[in-house]
């Protein structure tokens, strides 16, 4: 057992569940309500200073039919120790909303926009939750498993390029 994980478990006890992970990686699961507290602890007291990535996962069609359907993963890295940890957060099916972490890491700003864009998961408290990769008139969320891979949408609205009538700002 590595030290940061021990400290996390000592601090949060049963609110953090250790998941089985391959290749010596560390993965824990926390409830959405505990998310910000846990990652803030990991950043400020366990030295995980970099939010590497934020991954949305859609489990629709999985043989075990897990609920909730969506999960968001936070990859954290510690520069000084070289350790990495993965925080899995199930997304409530009824609200599809998680708290935003952008005040802890500027990186979360665009990464949360990406998860919103591709999965339709909202982040409460995000300053500007709008699409980042898809066109602003795109309908649906492309990485959901029920979005057909072959569906095309023709989106070439010229007004998107006008400075005065711009629906989005980063």
């Amino acid at each position, binding site marked *: 057992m590595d030290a940061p994980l021990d400290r996390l478990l000592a601090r949060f006890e049963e609110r953090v569940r250790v998941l089985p*992970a*391959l*290749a010596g*990686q560390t*993965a824990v699961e926390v409830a959405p309500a505990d998310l910000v507290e846990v990652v803030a602890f990991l950043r*400020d007291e366990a*030295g995980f*200073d*970099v*939010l*590497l*990535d934020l*991954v949305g*996962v*859609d*489990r629709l069609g*999985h*043989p075990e039919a897990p609920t909730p359907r969506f999960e968001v*993963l936070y*990859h954290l*890295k510690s*520069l*000084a*120790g*070289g350790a*990495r940890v*993965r925080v899995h957060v199930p997304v409530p099916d009824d609200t599809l909303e998680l708290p935003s972490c952008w005040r802890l*890491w*500027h*990186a979360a*700003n*665009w990464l949360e926009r990406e998860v919103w864009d*591709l999965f339709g998961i909202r982040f409460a408290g995000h*300053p*500007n939750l709008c*699409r*980042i*990769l*898809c*066109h602003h008139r795109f309908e649906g969320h*492309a*990485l959901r*498993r029920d*979005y057909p*891979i072959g569906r095309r949408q023709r989106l070439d609205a010229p007004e998107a*390029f006008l*400075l005065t009538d*711009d629906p*989005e*700002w*980063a």
Partner: protein
Amino acid sequence: MVDAHPSHEPVAPALVEVSGLSLPAAITHLPRPDPYLNVEDYEPEADAMALNMGPQHPSTHGVLRLKLFLDGEICFKAVPYVGYLHRGVEKLLENRTAIQSVPYVDKNDYVSPLTGELALVMAYEALLDVEPPPRAQVLRTILMELQRIASHHLWLGTFCLDMGGALGGGSSVFLYNFRERELILDLLEALTGQRMHYNALMVGGNRHDVPPGWEEKVLATMDRVEDRLAEYEAMTVDNHIFRSRTVGVGVLDPLLALEAGAGGANLRASGVDHDLRRDAPYAAYGQVDVRIPVETAGDCYARFLVRIAEMREAIRIVRLLVSGIPEGPIGALKPPRHVNAVKLPPGEVYVGIESPRGELGTYLISDGSPIPVRVKIRPPSLHAVSLLPYLCVGATVSDIVVILGSLDPILGEVDR
């Protein structure tokens, strides 16, 4: 004998301890502009205007749109728009087997496609618990470093092109760099048959073995590239115009860089000594002593110096490894006969490698079928572009072009 860097003398900078890291005090805790500044609240008397840079503009290094709000020529707010090159690579990879996936990631970071391939195949290998044989590992390391030199050559050329006619007539440095990049592409073509989208790696090893005489060609090319590198330094390092365009421009606070997830030379130029090749060795990097260049000024010039030093270091690593490639097979698995040949066990795994632009990661989820449930690519360039709202404020339009170039983003990778 004239000192090659009379103006760049190493002076130990004052350091400050922040969460276990020693960071240069002069650029740490810099004031940060508000990226969500309401333009209406900016001084009403100012002669403010909005300027659209991109998406089709040669200095944006791809298809990036920057909306700049200017007071005179000084930018007070910058809004980057990405996504113009979004091709749904992750969606495609969720519908492809391990063998079919590799050519797709080639197109992400099209300036260093091999690093994208390695990040993907290493994730599959970690999931399958397959270790490529030593020959494949050393060959991969050589390929990564050749790719790093080629990538930095393209970066240096376009970076100098951004600065316009000041550097020996506009496109001189640009074209000289393409000359050396061609030599490296020749080596990669001799090995893989391709000059850009190689499809050279596969799960468990490499696809191509070394052709006869390749090692000698590599060594000869390294000599030539190293000689020419000295010429570039002569054209840039002490060039008054180059220095006045880059020194003190686009200073990146290491704390902001960490918070934004920036990596690679952008991070190391701000005094953060971190490189996965040394800190978490993969392929054959454990066999060589990788020296990591670090600068502390955090400006465009420091990023330039780090990349030049990285090219020299890459040449050294290639020379060390190419003379002692171990004998043996280049693949741990039998050559695949059909696309479903690689059976994935259920599980989730993340693998990160040091691409020329920072940590390039792949996160893989499998439920036991030949096609993965989810493939997430962690592009380092996305995090570099997300720094622009902070770095551009207070800079002139001409500096913004240099700042953008110095971050070395590849938009194909940002948008995936």
